[in-house]
């Protein structure tokens, strides 16, 4: 099964090849994707830190903050991975309904998340735990959401971090409308760097096939809305490889919509920071949207209910392990003598404490009261709802009488 998926991308016939006119050989038309997409060499992403931990220069982007900031990133990366690992384990122990792992995508999320200012606003998918961390959302809220103990979990306006969106692509339109609201609030292009703001819309490679997302591109473009479209191309949409979504590198699509697109090494936290920061600057000053394609890899399953061995080769995973987003930062810090054992041990300790906090905190989250299902449907309860609530309370009371 997995073989056939991969055999496909290897034996792609050219698009120009005329489909067979006899029989039902639609496979020629519908089957394979273009090999150009899986060929990484032609479309080198912006990279400022190699997998070996060496700094690189780039003509358009640079990371000019000091090594203390990089040490901070390292801490973010490690803690984010820990949050993810703890949540995955809690799901396995039946404490969470489901969990969407971010394993492998830490740099894309921390780099972009740390590039934002407090005034910027984020529209995430369901996998942005690292961005949530950067925005100051308590990871216990994330667990509460996936445990299902309440609706929502965090206040989007407190951290300028919207709630998770699971109907694919919808949030890109919300982001665009939010950005248009910012334009009308006068917080775009005012020239005041503490005031000017932008929106970052996160989405995946699969989402780029949704009408919503393409419509968001068009709107943001014609209204010159301050949106950074941050696409984490993790190569997979559940079981479907990127070849099923696009025959050209995703960032190149932006051109057709009328705004710039850039591909960045999604496992390089420095490059993700620099590229997002440049895109945010452009948006805040009123120059419109940018498409950032963070080229990365989903190292885990789609969610805890998915089994990726059904559809992909373990060799790919091994290949991407060599590009690990955390190992390269550590290599850089160690090689340059920028951090000592005490630094790494301290972070390890912090991660342990985080793990404990999450395990204990998660189990202690109170179950919601059954009558709360009637809350928050409307501000003011309709008479029908109020009557249903009363009936349901009587029904619940009937059990108490039975004891």
């Amino acid at each position, binding site marked *: *099964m*997995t073989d*056939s*998926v991969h055999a*496909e991308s290897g034996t792609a016939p050219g698009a120009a090849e005329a489909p067979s006119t006899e029989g*039902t*050989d*639609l*496979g020629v038309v*519908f*089957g394979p994707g273009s090999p150009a997409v899986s060929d990484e060499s032609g479309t080198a992403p912006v990279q400022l830190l190699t997998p070996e931990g060496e700094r690189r220069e780039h003509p358009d982007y640079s990371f000019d903050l000091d090594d203390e900031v990089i040490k901070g990133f390292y801490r973010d990366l490690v803690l984010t991975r820990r949050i993810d690992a703890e949540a995955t384990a809690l799901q396995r122990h039946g404490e969470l*309904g*489901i969990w969407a792992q971010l394993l492998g995508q830490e740099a894309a999320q921390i780099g972009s998340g740390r590039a934002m200012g407090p005034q910027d606003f984020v529209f995430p998918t369901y996998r942005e735990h690292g961005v949530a961390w950067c925005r100051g959302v308590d990871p216990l809220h994330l667990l509460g959401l996936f*445990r*299902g*103990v*309440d*609706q929502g979990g965090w206040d989007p306006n407190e951290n300028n971090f919207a709630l998770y969106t*699971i*109907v*694919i*692509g919808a949030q890109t339109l919300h982001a665009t409308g939010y950005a248009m609201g910012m334009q009308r609030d006068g917080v775009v292009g005012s020239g005041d760097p503490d005031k000017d703001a932008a929106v970052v819309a996160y989405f995946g490679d*699969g*989402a780029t*096939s*949704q*009408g*919503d997302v393409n419509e968001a591109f068009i709107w943001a473009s014609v209204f010159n809305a301050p949106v950074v479209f941050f696409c984490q191309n993790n190569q997979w*949409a*559940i*079981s*479907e490889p990127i070849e*099923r*979504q696009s025959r050209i590198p995703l960032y190149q699509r932006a051109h057709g919509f009328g705004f710039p697109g850039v591909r960045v090494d999604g496992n390089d936290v420095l490059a993700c920071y620099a590229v997002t920061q440049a895109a945010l600057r452009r948006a805040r000053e009123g120059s419109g949207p940018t498409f950032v394609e963070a080229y990365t890899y989903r190292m885990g399953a789609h969610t805890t209910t998915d089994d990726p061995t*059904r*559809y992909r080769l373990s060799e790919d995973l091994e290949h991407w392990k060599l590009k690990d987003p955390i190992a390269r930062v550590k290599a850089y810090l160690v090689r340059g003598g920028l951090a000592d054992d005490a630094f790494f041990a301290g972070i390890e300790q912090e991660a342990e404490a985080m793990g404990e906090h999450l395990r204990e905190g998660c189990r202690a989250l109170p*179950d*919601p009261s*059954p009558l*709360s*299902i*009637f809350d928050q*449907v409307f501000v003011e309860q*309709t008479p*029908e*709802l109020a009557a*249903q609530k009363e009936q*349901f309370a009587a*029904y619940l009371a*009937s059990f108490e009488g039975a004891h």
Partner: protein
Amino acid sequence: MTVMNYRKAIAEGIGRALRSDQRVVFLGEDVGAAGGAFKSTVGLYEEFGPDRVWDTPISEQAIVGAAMGAAMTGLRPIAEIMFTDFLGVCWDMVANQVAKARYMSGGQLEVPLVIRAHGGAGLGFGAQHSQTWENLLMSIPGIKVAAPSTPRDVIGLLAAAVADPDPVILLEHKALFDAKEDVPDEPFLEPLGSASIRRTGDDLTLVALSAMVPVAVQAAATLEAEHGISAEVIDLRSVTPTDTATLLQSVERTSRLMTVEENPRPCGWGAEIASIVAEEGFTFLDAPIQRVTSANVPVPFAANLEHATIPNADTVVKAVLSYS
């Protein structure tokens, strides 16, 4: 006969359609190489290949819109929408395009299209992944709508849907995946618009659909065993067309009617059933028609809240006891 669960029956039904009719193609997200997001289409890609089983990009509008176009060329597409809720993403295609093609072309266009979706609550998928939309869909003229409650009906109704010259939407229920039943090995179909009596009884008629059928059957067993009440259970199976005859014949005997619906109360499919019986069977009734439905709230994610929202055998039993 072969014993098979509901999940397996989905792949079996699609496989039979693909095997027996070269015009049938099957498309959707993750349906091919991975065997479906719910593993309900395992083996089809291996048997029929990419010509006939299409893993599509993540675009519901295109899945239904392109399936409609393909149907216009004479293919008989079976299009899968992963969750019933995502029919909302392609509502124009469903409600404005597919449903109206025959009518607006004066009968010149034929859209022999089957759309299948996995719906329903009970598995902790939350408000946007748990809805039952038989009621929304049945309000649109031009599409037929059915919801199988057993493995046999999954296969039989799909066979009928594929054979039908008009568009048919089949809503399969995620909470029924493990339900097992003997299914015939030879080809068969269960006609659209025919209800099935799952349990006979004299004192009242329970009408249910999809995952509410086992709930009603279980409630009927309790009513019989513990309260001496004999309830008849009708599995409506399809809401468009509706099997009014079976319904009225039953109510004529039992003189009491209760619907058991997973949707919230306003405009649930049971409201239509109640209105039919009120108009055509009023004189059969000894008491007002009753409806058991979900609460008028989005389906909550938390297991205990979801359980509180959706009818179960106990709520049905209690409703019957306060009714009789």
